[in-house]
């Protein structure tokens, strides 16, 4: 039950893009077509879940026990960069077809702030999922990370669908490109506000 609350909360209520403003660069940058948006989302789900698991373990067993948690930012970004590189190499070797699909998105992910954002927030922020405020344990961390990334995917694919339609209508010249995309994203965020209070 608690995991279900985490999933609903992270995907809909506190959607990482539309309510927490993380990962807006890829959200605006690679959302021109539904197919690329899907590929990017799949890569993000994969990387976020894995990197959050690794950074959580590093934080708990190395940084916290040595009392150097102020080094988080540097350590996490290095771990994420190395991990993305490693995933790329392994994927190339064991599953060329998956690499074909996700390959071009992987290098972009290192600087996607959702990855570092989720990794840092699970170790610093206290969450209230239908109970008292507490730091997440390992199981909750993995579920939260995966569903945050899923929320990114949902927002991304919905938005790409809207933008594909938007290409077909005529937009005032000054609004072409990013401005109209932002206004559209605003309206989408307004729709997602309807979920607030659900959990």
């Amino acid at each position, binding site marked *: 039950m608690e995991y279900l609350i985490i999933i609903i909360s992270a995907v809909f209520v506190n959607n990482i893009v*539309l*309510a*927490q*403003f*993380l*990962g*807006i*660069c890829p959200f*605006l940058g690679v959302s021109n077509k539904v197919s690329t948006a899907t590929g990017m989302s799949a890569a993000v789900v994969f990387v976020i879940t894995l990197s959050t698991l690794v950074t959580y373990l590093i934080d708990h067993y190395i940084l916290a026990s040595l009392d150097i948690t*102020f*080094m*988080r*930012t*540097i350590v996490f*970004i*290095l771990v994420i*960069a190395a991990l993305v590189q490693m995933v790329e190499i392994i994927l190339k070797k064991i599953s060329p077809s998956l690499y074909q699909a996700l390959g071009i998105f992987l290098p972009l992910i*290192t*600087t*996607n*702030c959702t*990855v*570092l*954002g989720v990794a*840092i*927030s699970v170790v*610093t*922020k206290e969450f209230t999922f239908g109970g008292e405020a507490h730091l997440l344990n390992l199981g909750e961390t993995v579920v939260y990370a995966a569903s945050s990334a899923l929320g990114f995917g949902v927002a991304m694919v919905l938005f790409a669908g809207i933008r594909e339609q938007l290409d077909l209508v005529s937009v005032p010249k*000054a*609004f072409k490109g*990013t*401005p*109209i*995309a*932002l*206004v559209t*994203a*605003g*309206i989408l*965020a*307004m729709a*997602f*506000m309807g979920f607030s209070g659900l959990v």
Partner: protein
Amino acid sequence: MSKLRIIANGIIKDNPTFILVLGMCPTIGTTTSAINGMGMGLATTFVLILSNVFISLLAKMIPDKVRIPAYIVIIASFVTVLELLMQAYVPDLYAALGLFIPLIVVNCIILGRAEAFANKNTPLDSACDGIGIGLGFTLALTVIGMVRELLGNLSFFGMKLAEGGDGMLAFVLAPGGFIVLGYLMVVFRKLTQKKA
């Protein structure tokens, strides 16, 4: 190019928010009020100037293949310095900006300037570029924060303008951020296009 020209370029012609469309997450996430926007802008400027200078100094020493990880380490070190300084001297602002301070590491403006400017220019020019781009970013964030605060909270830099009014809450929340930024971008484009 004169130093002044480099600074002016960063504010107008290469404005990171309105023209280059970089660093969107803090732009929308922290501009719930003018003060928060300005604080975020100045924090980013701090890191940007220092990382630009250091990367331009070290550019010749860093092998080309590992330059991106090297830049990230340099940037992350300055962000950690900033985090510790802010925790010590402006804890309220640090709490308000929260996650977005460590996330300066992955702000594409900083890595972008390192790649596009700092690694092929002198340290002094790179510092000017950092100041220009940083001020352009700060200005943009302050303006967005001002508009959102005014519409959403009926206040100006924390001063309440009308008693008893609540404003349109949506402008302080997520949707307002996207919509205000979209419209301001249109205004900025119109203004700068006329000049050119």
